[in-house]
């Protein structure tokens, strides 16, 4: 790598000094190459000569040609830079008669790149990119050179591997090299490449390996290719199962966090809150508003907005829930049908309010550290945002459990829910407990909405997509049981995500949902009280 750098630097200095003619034998005459590149008749030949070049001036020239920034101007070839300044083909800035940077005026003519040569230019540029500064570009260029099937890229790749320090890029370079060596004339070379690709279980190399298998005559290489393909298949199958499980757990976490609040308001209190989806929506819009405020006022801390948004969503949804309980629901205890209709109406008011105020579509930008994910197996990435939601669901669940079952406040809540009259006799203010418990449920929904904004949309009707799933989870789990909600979320999440890939056809996502719904209905027919039914006096009390 160091030797290469010296060579590159030397080439740079030479061209920079305009010493093209002074360079030793074998050096490229940039001016004349560029001139031939500009003429349609000689373009192809000129490209052929430039293929093996490592001169940065050639990269600049070809990039300009590809981007349409190469012009014939006043009888010479010039490159138009991004800053609208002009340089000659060697990269020296051009000045006009007044000594000011020259500008393109009129009379210039863009040099056209013949469409059929586009691929060639692209290949040559990738050779430069694979030695460039940006690791992402190096990796992508390596991949493209590997799939190009052009063995003349082998020396460049070999050179790039020597100097590569980034682990991912190095792996990509080695894969690319192995793919190109599949076409090497020496069977031993091919065998080595096949074995390497098999060992890495490189899914990306499957088409090349299959092509090799179709033409290969050497029995050892054939056998190795077949084994390699089997290895890759097995790896992909295993990896997919891990992927499906993660998808299922991630969906389970989404369902759990969505329905925790409902497990409190509907499960414990027995209130059919049709505005539950809108409470999630409030959380999502809180995230959006906080993000916009941060973007406008504190752009330097824009990424931290989420940590403000999360507790704020809890507060906002909690307060709205408190107001809802105080203003409406408390008059309707024991009248589930009226509660259903009234809360549905409140949900519609909130929807239309959001539509009037925010418009129809907005979206929340994930903080930068939630973008991307962690690669657990080759080709399998767990997105950070989903991992975060799994974590948040667990934290929220733990906190709720501690609050309900390990705190004095929780004891009062459970007392009121199980036997209201007795609790009141013992001096518990049932009114206050009702209000606070309902607010807690909606506040949890707010947190969920805030978190789900990371992976989904924020729009006035987003609540509709949540409410059905939430009720399904709580009802399947068994009303009144926290553990039931958890188990139901996991069951629905996993079965949905295991069924979906198993269904072929063009609408697997729909059919998977239908299948899950059918299973749930069938299960509730069989056990109407859900997975974990309440027993004893509490059951008769809430029923």
């Amino acid at each position, binding site marked *: 790598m160091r030797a290469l750098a010296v060579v590159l630097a030397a080439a740079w200095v030479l061209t920079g000094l305009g010493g093209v003619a002074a360079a030793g034998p074998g050096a490229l005459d940039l001016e004349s190459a560029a001139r031939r590149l500009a003429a349609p008749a000689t373009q192809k030949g000129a490209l052929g000569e430039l293929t093996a070049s490592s001169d940065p001036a050639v990269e600049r020239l070809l990039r300009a040609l590809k981007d349409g920034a190469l012009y014939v101007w006043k009888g010479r070839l010039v490159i138009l830079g991004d800053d609208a300044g002009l340089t000659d083909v060697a990269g020296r800035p051009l000045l006009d008669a007044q000594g000011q940077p020259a500008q393109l005026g009129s009379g210039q003519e863009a040099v056209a790149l013949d*469409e059929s040569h586009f691929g060639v230019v692209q290949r040559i540029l990738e050779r430069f990119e694979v030695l460039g500064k940006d690791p992402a570009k190096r990796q992508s260029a390596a991949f493209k050179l590997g*799939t190009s099937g052009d063995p003349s890229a082998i020396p460049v790749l070999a050179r790039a591997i020597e100097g590569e320090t980034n682990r991912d890029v190095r792996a990509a370079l080695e894969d690319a090299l192995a793919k190109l060596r599949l076409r090497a004339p020496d069977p031993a070379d091919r065998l080595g490449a096949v074995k390497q690709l098999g060992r890495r279980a490189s899914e990306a190399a499957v088409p090349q390996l299959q092509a090799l298998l179709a033409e290969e005559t050497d029995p050892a290489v054939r056998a190795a290719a077949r084994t390699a393909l089997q290895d890759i298949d097995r790896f992909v199958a295993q990896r997919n199962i891990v992927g499906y499980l993660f998808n299922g757990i991630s969906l389970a976490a989404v369902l759990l966090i969505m329905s925790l609040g409902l497990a409190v308001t509907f499960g414990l209190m027995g209130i059919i809150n049709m505005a539950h989806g809108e409470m999630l929506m409030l959380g999502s819009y809180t995230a959006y508003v906080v993000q916009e405020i941060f973007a406008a006022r504190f752009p330097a801390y824009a990424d931290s907005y989420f940590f403000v948004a999360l507790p704020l969503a809890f507060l906002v949804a909690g307060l709205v829930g408190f107001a809802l309980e105080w203003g409406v629901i408390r008059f309707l205890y024991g009248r589930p049908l009226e509660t259903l209709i009234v809360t549905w109406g409140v949900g519609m008011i909130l929807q239309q309010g959001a539509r009037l105020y925010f418009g*129809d579509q907005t979206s929340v930008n994930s903080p930068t550290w939630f973008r991307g*994910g962690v690669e657990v197996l080759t080709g399998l*990435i767990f997105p950070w945002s989903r991992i975060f939601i799994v974590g948040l669901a667990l934290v929220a669940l733990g906190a709720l459990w501690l609050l309900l079952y390990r705190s004095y406040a929780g004891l009062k809540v459970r007392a009121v829910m199980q036997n209201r009259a007795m609790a009141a006799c013992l001096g518990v203010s049932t009114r206050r407990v009702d209000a606070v418990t309902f607010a807690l449920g909606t506040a949890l929904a707010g947190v969920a909405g805030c978190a789900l904004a990371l992976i989904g949309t924020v729009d006035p009707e987003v609540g509709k*997509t949540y409410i059905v799933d939430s009720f399904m989870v709580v009802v399947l789990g068994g009303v009144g049981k926290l553990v039931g909600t958890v188990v139901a979320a996991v069951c629905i999440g996993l079965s949905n995500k295991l069924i979906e890939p198993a269904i072929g056809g063009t*609408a697997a996502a729909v059919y998977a949902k239908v299948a899950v719904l059918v299973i749930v209905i069938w299960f509730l027919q069989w056990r109407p009280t859900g997975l974990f039914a309440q027993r004893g006096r509490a059951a008769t009390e809430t029923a």
Partner: protein
Amino acid sequence: MSAWSRREFLRGSLVAGTGLAAGIGFPKILTAQGKEPIKVGILHSLSGTMAISEAPIKEVVLMAIGEINKAGGVLGRKVEPVIEDPASNWDLFAEKSKKLLLQDKVAAVFGCWTSVSRKSVLPVFEKNNGLLFYPVQYEGEECSKNVIYTGATINQQATPGIDYLMSAEGGGKKKFYLLGSDYVYPRTTNKILRLYLTKVKKVPESAIAEEYTPFHHQDYQTIVGKIKSFSAAGDAAVINTINGDSNVPFFKELANQGVTADKTPTMSYSFAEVELQTLDVKPLVGHLASWNYFMSLKTPDNLKWVKAYKEWCKGHSIPDKQCVTDDPMMHAYIHVHLWAKAVQKAESTDVEKVLKALEGLEIPSPVGKYKVDEKNHHTWKPVYIGKIREDGQFDVVWKTKSWVRPAPWSEVTYPGRDCDWSNGGKGSFDVVGGKRMWLSDKS
């Protein structure tokens, strides 16, 4: 002379095969009305789910009408817009169009966005011989006498997108994952694209995957996983016709699972600059879209138009962030001017005469010259491929060398079928044994 008797009269004259009679009848109405303004209808959803896309269309139509009036109107008469809001409700579209045609007696209607809304007003326009200008790209397989389709047909947006992806510039893609929302536009588009890929481009069936998700679908984990496997070798692209909000979770999931635009580009056909302003653009950067117009085009005409629209926004308190132009807006703006020019040329607002004047009519537009086809009521236009930028605009990476002819009936799904309304043509026809078989005669 009442409108009803005039229409009866027109129909009679059509049966007699003499359009001339209608011509004699018309000037009477004109003199009767004198210098009264010419009414035109605007039928776009200003509320409900489609408002986000359709409200800006109303703005540019009003802007174009304002320009026409400033230049002295049409036939010396002012143009007066009648605005109706069908509120994203398909039944309301039909009702409101009936009101515009029968009660307001508008000379033309500029309206509709979704195919459902167009299909719902179509019988109204055909029965009452109205004139509808439709500005949005659509799935084709339609060619009404009473509609001028200024948006793209499949061969003016969708198939050029495939051509680009398969070219060396587009990465020489060989496999295609067709992903869309489950309704008529994606299903029809993908049906045509599948045939185009297999028949014209010789792509094997095994290299095409097709998948649909319901509206408002949120969980794209499994689908993105499939796309990742499908595109592992780096030779695949996604053709995206997902509608509206579901694009957000889809692109977020793509980015999070490490599917890059560089290796596996997504070509989208159903969102443009207006919709991009409302999305989190970061996960979309580098992905592609195919349209007949981009706001970022550096043509003098476009720079002028964008500037004029920015002025319009200021005067109508539209926030700067939402003040962008896009493909359907450009078509809507141009078709108002097309109508005005046709009326001027026909010296009448009579639908038959205006339709006649529209045949082959050319006007300048932000994308250069713009022409109505001589026969099939669609328009000729260039096709651009754009790459999404951080600011929700597009870098133009490719364009067709010339105008693309509109083909309402795709060659791959209906070989030999075309449409002709000129010179007594009766719309869509099949060629059977060298002779035209009109579809309207069959039924």
